[in-house]
């Protein structure tokens, strides 16, 4: 009964509002961004066409490389922590006992709060004189004088942010892993138990391979999220010291808005979008291959 021409038209009418919206507020801005990136344009002066000039400048811009390298480093450090940590917790809390459920709920709670709020919460906890982390480490006798966590040393700042984000998003991977592990058919688990395989052997031979798709998916989401990191660095380090902790998105923001170098900012956005697209494609291919 859905084969008539009228049905086709009716369906199209229902899709039209969303289609228009995406066209106007995502596709059109994207095309505009391509065009802006080919121009030299600050809000005060009219745009002048420079071709790929902005892209050439980006590759010669040391801050562009500093930001990109820092973002990759952040991603490279935090992703394994989130994946391994999330998976271990998932293994721990997969059985549906009361304590497991309760732990799941609490581990997931930080996921629902805002990145802005959590960053400012940790900005305080990491504060040298007023923060409870230094107080706690002092009480334990680990340190004598306050550690300057944020904005003084790039590596230390990176780790402080990683700690805060791990707290914030660990539960996300955990909840997806728990669901994937619980979806493994009971017979398979029982068969391996009868086989006499130990717990870790079973994890390695059964659980990990059978949850591979979810692992890849969570990796993809974490990697993309980390490559686009902004809020946590803007709020916790403000890019300090010397813009060494200004991530790629941060640098795009700095150029586009405070500096008003719109053309250059757009070119940087394009490069960032392309890098993200590359990761998306690679991960999609991996996911598809693991399905077969």
């Amino acid at each position, binding site marked *: 009964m859905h084969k008539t021409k009228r*049905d086709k038209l009716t369906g199209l009418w229902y899709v039209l509002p969303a289609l228009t919206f995406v066209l106007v507020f995502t596709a059109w801005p994207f095309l*505009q961004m391509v065009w802006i990136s080919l121009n030299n344009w600050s809000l005060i002066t009219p745009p002048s066409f420079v071709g790929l000039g902005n892209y050439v400048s980006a590759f010669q811009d040391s801050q562009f490389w500093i930001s990109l390298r820092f973002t990759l480093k952040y991603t490279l450090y935090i992703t394994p922590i989130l994946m391994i940590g999330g998976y271990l917790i998932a293994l721990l809390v997969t059985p549906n006992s009361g304590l497991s459920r309760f732990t799941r709920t609490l581990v997931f709670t930080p996921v629902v709060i805002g990145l802005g709020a959590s960053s400012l919460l940790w900005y305080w906890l990491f504060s040298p004189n007023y923060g409870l982390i230094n107080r706690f480490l002092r009480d334990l006798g680990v340190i004598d004088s306050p550690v300057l966590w944020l904005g003084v040393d790039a590596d230390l700042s990176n780790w402080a942010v990683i700690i805060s984000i791990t707290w914030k998003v660990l539960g996300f991977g955990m909840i997806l892993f728990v669901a994937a592990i619980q979806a493994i058919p009971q017979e398979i688990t029982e068969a391996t138990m009868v086989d006499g395989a130990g717990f870790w052997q079973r994890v390695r031979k059964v659980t990990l391979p059978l949850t591979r798709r979810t692992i890849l998916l969570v990796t993809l989401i974490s990697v993309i999220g980390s490559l686009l990191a902004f809020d946590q660095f803007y709020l916790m380090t403000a890019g300090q010291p010397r813009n060494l902790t200004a991530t790629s998105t941060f640098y795009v923001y700095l150029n586009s808005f405070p500096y008003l170098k719109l053309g250059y900012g757009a070119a940087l956005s394009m490069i960032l979008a392309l890098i993200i697209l590359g990761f998306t494609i690679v991960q999609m291919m991996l996911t598809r291959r693991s399905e077969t």
Partner: protein
Amino acid sequence: MTRALSDPIQAAPFEAGIEPPLTRKEPNRLWAGRNRYLLGAVCVVLCVVMIAPIVLSVSASLKTTAEAAAVPPTYFPSELSLDNYQKLWDYGSGLVTYLGNSLITAALTIVMILALTVPAGYGLARFPVPGKNVIFVFLLLALIIPYQALLTPIFLMFSTLGLTNNLLGLAIVHTTIQIPFSLYIMRNAFEAVPRELEEAAVVDGANSWQVLRRVFMPTIVPAVITVTLFAFVTSWNEFLGALVMLTRDRSLTVPLVLAAARSVTSLGSTDWGMLQAGVTIAIIPCVLVYFLLQRYYVSGLLSGAVK
């Protein structure tokens, strides 16, 4: 697997008439034997670590101004006080303005996302729309192009349309972020409804709009709740878009006010008590919504991320 099943040792317990393997004491179960206490302790430690920052933030927000500025800081307030909330209440244009801005933006986002994705999900799942798959992928465009990268052109467009410093403008940005997830959830919800339900209504002479309202709306309520929930949380928490779009003090949303409140000083340093009061206020709706609608949260995440 096949190797495991053909293993001769495997059948032994059954032959010997011992109870089935699953009810025996199992050395290969994680939570078996003495391990139980150890793992229970790990769970408890994990819970404490996860909840501690929130508890400490809330308790810092209840310190007096003097105690909030104490060096070294105290873990818990020695005297409870609402000073920090009082200061936050009067901060800038007043907390009510900012909370109102955040709530209005979230409400507009929810209205727009439902108005767009409920019909779109219906159309894509229930009608032979030409080029259906291409349309679907196009609607997921925001997944491929992150909105963070599109803020410059959107800002330029909005400044000509008068949508900067405007909550509707910000809500549009938040809607673009949520479209892929919401559409996905909606389309799946519509596809899951059995065809017979729809056919009965069509035989009765109902048109497609009536079918949507009478047949589908009652059954897709969980999907609507899920989409609403995620739209609310995204909009309430979103920071970068708001930072770019809103510059006038009166139109700021809560996350921006928190960032600005960092530079307010009290007794020679950041006013930490007030900042944590702000963090607490920003967290409350999210945590509340999570505890009330936990089921929708988890199912939404699973169907949105895994499939």
